[in-house]
């Protein structure tokens, strides 16, 4: 009888003790990864999460410059041949050593993940052959001279061959195959709720400060700010512009702001003969897709007052853009400014294109991807209506629904963004504007299906230049050349803000990642 009593007491203690497990750092994040498989999708959300758990051959600093990661050094033996030396003594989180076989396995799997909405294919498209020389040495040959090879294949997340061979994305989501070389180990992911991580003590690099980390996904802006103010989370990202000044005045809160490389743009789909949501003034489908006419695209760009959007919607947290690559990236054309609002010119271009009275258009956007996205879509609706189009609707949807549909081509005029994760504009231009070619991995984000062969050619030539200065100058020329066609309508580059408890800080950069390894106490 007494034994029973003690057993009951022990059981009671065990159940009450369990939830008391301390978390050292709780992060409130605005948007969630769509998968834990680091090769499933290369959207910013997924890469950000993957960088916590998985290593890559190179690392990018806050200015997106390349540094050695799992590859310690690399040499270019001749224009088509590279030798890569891997870091010795690195182990995966299950204790097995990291070798050349894992790199080959990871690169090989990159373009074979089923149902990927945004594949990494172009990161490995340059490779003709990859072979193992010894445990820690690889030899790579390329189809064409590829000066940016390490920036490209360096973006592939390295997974463990032993742990993930034959595994699906679902096995990564459950944690079964989620074994990397990164600073944190996967503990649990409850989709829509939280991701739990634990510091990996065998990590080869600098140990992060916080051991047990919980990342909560709070898409509602106000709820995220409230969670920080109430102390439920220690740090939040994507602080809404309206809240910045009040949080800065709060002595218990520290705000960190950086300009980001993310460009927000309006896509005008040329993919189909009839653009979704685009009609004549009576609501009937048009005979041709008006967005296939560069004059119409330019006219729409001229209807938009970018400064007003930055000022009114973003509270100043943005820089009006006239091209894709942000200032600071190699290949940014400093003399290519944003289009200024010019309604008379827009009207004239529409008339020349055969739409003197405009046409019907629906603007679609996400509502939780970046600060103010739903407001931006409505403001664009206003501006296009003033510019002479008949705006029949503005829709704002959750990003996980929206991005899938946008990639599938369901929208005619849609707001999207592209984050920078490389030192030059070449990968941005190639993924966003190169003629769509799934097999070659080019134009992976070319959702509007813009195609301009002379631009493709010029971009390929620029990308083959080994001298960075020549390459950047050629990229500037290519940027100006394609801007004349208005392939997409660039709107602005974001400024991003994090807010956290006083006493914490985050090393944020152009990539705007919110990673626990970048958070530390202020000394």
């Amino acid at each position, binding site marked *: 009888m007494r034994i029973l009593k003690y057993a009951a007491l022990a059981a009671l203690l065990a159940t009450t003790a369990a939830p008391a497990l301390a978390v050292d750092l709780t992060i409130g994040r605005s948007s969630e990864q769509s998968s834990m498989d680091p090769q499933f999708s290369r959207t910013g959300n997924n890469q950000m999460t993957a960088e916590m758990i998985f290593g890559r051959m190179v690392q990018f600093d806050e200015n997106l410059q390349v540094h050695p990661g799992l590859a310690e050094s690399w040499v270019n033996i001749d224009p088509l041949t590279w030798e890569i030396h891997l870091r010795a003594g690195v182990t995966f989180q299950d204790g097995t050593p990291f070798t050349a076989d894992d790199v080959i396995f990871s690169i090989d799997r990159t373009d074979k993940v089923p149902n990927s909405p945004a594949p990494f294919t172009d990161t490995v498209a340059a490779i003709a052959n990859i072979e193992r020389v010894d445990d820690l040495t690889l030899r790579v040959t390329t189809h064409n001279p590829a000066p940016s090879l390490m920036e490209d294949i360096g973006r592939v997340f390295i997974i463990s061959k032993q742990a993930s061979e034959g595994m699906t994305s679902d096995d990564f989501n459950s944690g079964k195959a989620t074994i990397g070389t990164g600073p944190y180990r996967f503990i649990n992911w409850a989709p829509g709720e939280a991701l739990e991580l634990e510091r990996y003590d065998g990590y080869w690099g600098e140990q992060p400060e916080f051991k047990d980390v919980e990342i909560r996904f709070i898409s*509602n*802006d*106000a709820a995220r*700010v*409230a969670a920080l*103010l109430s102390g439920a989370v220690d740090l939040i990202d994507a602080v*809404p512009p*309206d*809240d910045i000044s*009040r949080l800065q005045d709060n002595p218990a809160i520290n705000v960190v702001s950086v300009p980001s490389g993310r460009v927000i743009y309006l896509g005008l789909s040329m993919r189909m003969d009839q653009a979704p949501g685009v009609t004549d003034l009576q609501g009937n489908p048009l005979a041709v897709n008006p967005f296939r006419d560069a004059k119409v695209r330019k006219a729409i760009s001229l209807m938009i007052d970018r400064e*007003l*959007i930055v000022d*009114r*919607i973003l509270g100043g947290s943005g820089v009006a853009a006239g091209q894709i690559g942000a200032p600071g990236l190699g290949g940014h054309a400093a003399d290519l400014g944003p289009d200024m609002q010019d309604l008379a010119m827009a009207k004239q271009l529409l008339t020349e294109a055969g739409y003197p009275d405009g046409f019907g258009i629906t603007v679609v956007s996400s*509502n939780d991807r970046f600060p103010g996205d*739903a*407001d931006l879509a*409505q*403001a664009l*609706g*206003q501006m296009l*209506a*003033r510019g002479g189009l008949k*705006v029949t*609707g*503005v*829709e*704002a949807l*959750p990003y996980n629904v929206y991005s899938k549909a946008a990639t599938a081509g369901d929208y005619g005029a849609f707001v999207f963004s592209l984050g920078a994760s490389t030192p030059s504009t070449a990968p941005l231009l190639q993924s966003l504007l190169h003629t769509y070619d799934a097999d070659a991995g080019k134009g992976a984000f070319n959702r509007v299906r813009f195609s301009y062969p002379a631009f493709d050619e010029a971009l390929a030539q620029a990308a083959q230049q080994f001298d960075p200065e020549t390459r950047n100058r050629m990229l500037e020329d290519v940027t100006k050349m394609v801007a004349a066609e208005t392939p997409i309508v660039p709107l602005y580059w974001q400024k991003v803000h994090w807010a956290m408890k006083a006493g914490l800080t985050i090393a944020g950069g152009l990539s705007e990642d919110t990673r626990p390894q970048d958070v530390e106490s202020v000394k």
Partner: protein
Amino acid sequence: MKLTLFRGEGMLVRVARGLRASPKASIALLVCVVLIAAAILAPLIAPQNPYDLLQIDIFDGKLPPGSASRTGSHYWLGTDTQGRDMYSAMLYGLRTSLSVGVTAGVLALVIGTAMGLSAAYFGGRIETLIMRFVDLMLGFPTILVALMILVVFGQGAWKVILALVFVQWAYFARAVRSAALVEIGKDYVEAARCLGLSSPRILFHHILPNCLPPLIVIGTIQVAHAITAEATLSFLGIGLPITQPSLGLLIANGYQVLLAGLYWMSVYPGLLLLVLVFSINVVGDRLREVLNPRLEL
């Protein structure tokens, strides 16, 4: 037929007398009438059409109450992020909220009444089938079911109405059935049957009029419920489209900037919703007192 219940007095007369006897209910009724009139007349009395993208300007966005617009008029209740005049947006929002709520309430009443009457009159398997389904419906939380319907069918005013009808008809069915069961046992129904009248005629001409008092009460309360439920769904972002905000969507939009001190975008629509639902409920409560035969006034 003339509705003669309760001591030979007409029902409408009794209702009017009962409402007048309570100052609280009279004021609430007046408020309801004013709000309904404002909703119907919104296009005439609102200074701006907030759904017309050409009439709103983000230049005038986020202005506090009382600010002057660029054309010299005043935004007495301020503007929202997009530069909509809050007063106009609230009038139009009221129109949307009321029309969705009333349409859903009336449709649920019609369907629920038909089901409840059939269950009571036919009995047996039909009754079991209907009433067990009603029990099932009442067992689910309203918002959860509405959420599922909207996720499956997508957004839009008619889909919101469909979802609300689907979750509300059961309340009417249950009330009508119990009221009808009492009536069916009475002599006048027996007499009608002996005369060989058809079932529909007995149901709709003899039983239904006598079940009206509870129906009117529940109908009033359920319209208030429908308005609240629509506001909740819109607040959660799955109700009506973003460019045509109902009161719930206005509150949701304003809530995003509430912590930043821009209180007027959510507080004013919130107050309006509160006043509307409160008034309808007060009127409904009074109706219940007036129409309850066991309570003597």
